[in-house]
């Protein structure tokens, strides 16, 4: 599609989207005035609106010369997002609205032939698929005093082991009368996608997953919080036709989790928090019921041959004060613990960490540090692995002109047994900053040097040890002219990575980069022009690997106090060297981003 056509269609889309919203905005003050005018007779609460609304558009282009597949597009060609996030206040009623959606499917988990990642962008989705698409948020949460209704898309976090990572499209409520907390939500977290072997590539499919969650608790802010949480997730076997094949690993699953949470302040500045959870999870609902294995919990979940049940527990205690924080945290997640509310949670582990923060010298020195260990594969069915994680950050403001930040990170990973491995990563970074003034300008120079060493060792023949080292140096200079409004900054960077191949050969990657930024405010700062140029030279084993230039130009325009327009266009040219196949190939990525945002208050 030619660029002009794209722009015209974009303008039409903008108008279509903004017109109803604009009408709404114009209408709101009238309503408010009407309420005010009648207040002479009977005082009525006024309508207040805060929050934002807007529209954003992103256009992406990729030009390869010569044509080929040595670089693949990494964004959708066109992406429009509509955002409508006002909060209406009328008397004691609060109505937050959260509507963010796009008609273009970009779901990575959505099969390409349904308009997901990798598709030509022509995929269609049903209304139900659109509403339950995790890409879209369409929800409201009206609240009156201690009662709140939850409708549409909601991301709810009950606790660390019950639910918190997934969004649901559905309905529910949250009641907080006095000390009591009563919450419930029922909805869909995964939309149904049927298996399609004829598509290219084949559509694996996914079952519709319905979830419900409930919380019963008591809370006194700043003193304590107790809650009992229940969550249930269940795939609907008949939601797809045909169903995903079993060999794909997409099986209809069902899980129930109960957790008990205590958060309390045990004395002034001291806290203690803990959560205990038990999960019952069925990996395949189509398998027969069983009374011999893990126990179910009727009527919430029936035990099947594919059911597992396990526990998780975490506890933390410590002290928080102005100049000193210290805390200990421990978390155990059993090998069979699985909850639908955290689909990516890694089980079978024990973590314990000691954290501290020290502030001294009238807050001119801050030290934050943590040290801990994670043991994975605690269960006897696999080999144990251990990770040691430690880091310390030390910041000192020596004077108003000079400060230093130093950082050290250590990460160790070790597994035992025949296939054992031992990996240790050490990173040290030092970052001094110095500023000085003249009568005309303020100068800031900040330098960062980082050394990273990553050692991999195999505990089996040939017992190879691999040392991977990286040096990074960054120099940034920021001049600020007192008499000028524009701001600039310049950065030079050097990056060097050395990885052994078949010894004595190494792969040495070096990057040399220079960047310049400028911001130019105009028309009493209503209009800010901005630009950036970045050049990077790529080198591998001493030979040129390619050159990269990225240019960005944009503007922020405060059209009114409440209406802002942003525009940003970026061109990214990468030209490979003669060593690349095809030689001297190049690609140009172009990205245009624009948004129109209205702030209600």
């Amino acid at each position, binding site marked *: 599609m030619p660029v002009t056509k794209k722009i015209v269609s974009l303008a039409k889309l903008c108008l279509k989207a903004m017109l109803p919203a604009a009408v709404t905005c114009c209408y709101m003050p009238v309503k408010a005035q009407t309420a005010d005018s009648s207040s002479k007779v009977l005082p009525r609460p006024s309508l207040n609106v805060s929050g934002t609304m807007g529209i954003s558009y992103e256009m992406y282009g990729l030009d390869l010369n010569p044509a080929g597949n040595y670089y693949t597009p*990494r*964004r959708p060609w066109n992406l429009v997002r509509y955002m409508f*996030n006002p909060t209406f206040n009328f008397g004691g009623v609060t109505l937050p609205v959260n509507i*963010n959606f796009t008609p273009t499917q*970009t779901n*990575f988990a959505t099969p390409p032939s349904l308009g997901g*990642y990798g598709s030509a962008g022509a995929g269609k989705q049903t209304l139900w698929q659109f509403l339950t698409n*995790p890409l879209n948020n369409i929800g409201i949460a009206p609240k009156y005093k201690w009662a709140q209704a939850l409708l549409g898309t909601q*991301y709810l976090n009950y606790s660390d082991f019950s639910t918190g990572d997934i969004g649901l499209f559905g309905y529910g409520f949250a009641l907080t009368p006095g000390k009591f907390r009563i919450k419930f939500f029922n909805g869909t977290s995964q939309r149904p996608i049927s298996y399609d072997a004829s598509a290219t590539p084949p559509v694996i499919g996914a079952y519709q997953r319905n979830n419900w969650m409930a919380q019963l608790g008591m809370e006194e802010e700043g003193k304590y919080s107790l809650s009992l949480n229940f969550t249930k997730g269940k795939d609907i076997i008949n939601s797809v036709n045909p169903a995903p094949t*079993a060999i794909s*690993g997409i099986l209809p699953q069902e899980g129930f989790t109960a957790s008990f949470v205590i958060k309390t302040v045990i004395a002034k500045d001291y806290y203690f928090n803990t959560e205990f959870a038990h999960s019952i999870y069925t*990996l*395949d609902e189509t*398998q*027969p019921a*069983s*009374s011999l*294995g893990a126990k179910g919990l009727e009527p919430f979940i029936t035990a099947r*041959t594919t059911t*597992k049940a*396990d526990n998780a527990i975490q506890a933390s205690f410590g002290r928080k004060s102005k100049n000193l924080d210290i805390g200990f945290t421990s978390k155990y997640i059993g*090998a*069979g613990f699985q909850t639908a509310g955290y*689909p990516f949670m*890694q089980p079978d582990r024990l973590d314990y960490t000691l954290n501290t923060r020290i502030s001294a010298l009238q807050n001119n020195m*801050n030290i934050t540090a943590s040290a801990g260990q994670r043991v*994975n*594969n605690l269960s*006897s*069915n696999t080999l144990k692995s251990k*990770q040691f994680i430690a880091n310390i950050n030390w*910041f000192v403001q020596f004077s108003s002109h000079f400060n230093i*930040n130093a950082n050290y990170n250590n*990460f160790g990973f070790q*597994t035992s*047994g025949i296939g054992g*491995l031992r*990996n240790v*990563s050490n*990173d040290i970074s030092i970052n001094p900053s110095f500023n000085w003034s003249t009568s005309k300008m303020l100068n800031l120079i*900040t330098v*960062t040097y980082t050394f*990273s060493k990553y050692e991999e060792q195999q505990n089996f023949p040939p017992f190879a040890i691999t040392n*991977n080292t990286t040096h990074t140096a*960054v120099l*940034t200079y*920021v001049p600020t002219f007192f008499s000028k409004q524009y701001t600039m*900054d310049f*950065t030079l960077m050097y*990056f060097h990575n050395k990885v052994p191949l078949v010894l004595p050969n190494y792969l040495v990657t070096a*990057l040399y980069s220079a960047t310049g930024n400028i911001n130019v405010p105009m028309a009493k700062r209503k209009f800010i022009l*901005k630009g950036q140029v970045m050049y*990077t030279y*790529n080198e591998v084993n001493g030979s040129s690997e390619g050159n*990269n230039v990225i240019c*960005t130009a*944009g503007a922020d325009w405060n059209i009114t106090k409440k209406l802002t327009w942003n525009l*940003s266009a970026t061109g*990214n040219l*990468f030209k490979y060297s003669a060593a690349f196949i095809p030689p001297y190939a190049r690609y140009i990525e172009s990205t245009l981003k624009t948004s129109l945002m209205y702030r209600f208050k």
Partner: protein
Amino acid sequence: MTIAGLYKYFVQTLKKSNTTLCLVLIMAVLPLQALQAQVKTQLQLAARPTSLLATWANHPEILNYIIMFQGGAAGGSLTIKIKATFKDGTGNVIGTSDLNFLPNRVITAGTTVLQSRDVVLLQTIHFTGSALKALNTTGRMPAGSYQLSLQLLDAQTLAPVSEETTRPFTLLSYQLPVLMLPQNEAVLAAEQARVAITFRWTPLAPAPSQERISYMLQVFEIQPGQTPVQALRSNQPLLNKQVTGTTQYIWQPQLYMADSAANRKFIWTVQTLYEGGYGFNNGAGDGRSEPFWFEIKSAKEILDSRKQ
């Protein structure tokens, strides 16, 4: 004692003692021996199946139990039960079928091929000890060496109608990679990150000796208003790079990172892949590791936050 051994014992007894009693016993044993002669079985079992025993039913490639029945007096069909016994590496029984729960199955003359969903009926198998505990909590058998024995029983008398067929197998259980750098919720300086970001993760453990695996490194931009996991589930990845033979990747983002609204938050994960490009699911899941997210801030923003 096998049927042949039993027969030999009876013949010896016949020579020594009560002839009538022994004749009765022989009459009882002979039909069984004759039946065994009519039923032959073969067990084909994958050497390294998934330790997630509960999902064997979905993997027809794991087990094939071939029954060759020549037919007989009962009109060419036979009603049987299939007894499954799990043993550890030294031959100790750790789980066996409860004959009361085993369903009857009718086999007809000819060859019948059964799979794990037909013969390893977990709802009928009593496990004991550590295997029971592990299966109840994780659905997996502990890693190690095992044997599986299958035998056909007469559904009425529960007498064996075939030889017990035993095959050894080994269970391995893997731990997916754990992400290392950038750490979860890390703040990276834009001046450095816009040139190169180093991603590092732990390898699949223990190191596979047979499977050839690779890692798919995926980085997603978290758009304003999105939660990190929402971005992972719904956005197109900015980086989707297959990495083989190493657990590190230096990403040159080639992104404009000075804007206050875009390219500021990212979530990343690693998907471990089989040679065929499928997720290394170890019996469950799609091989994706627990994701981490990180944020980009300018050196000036980082400096200001340190001072606070």
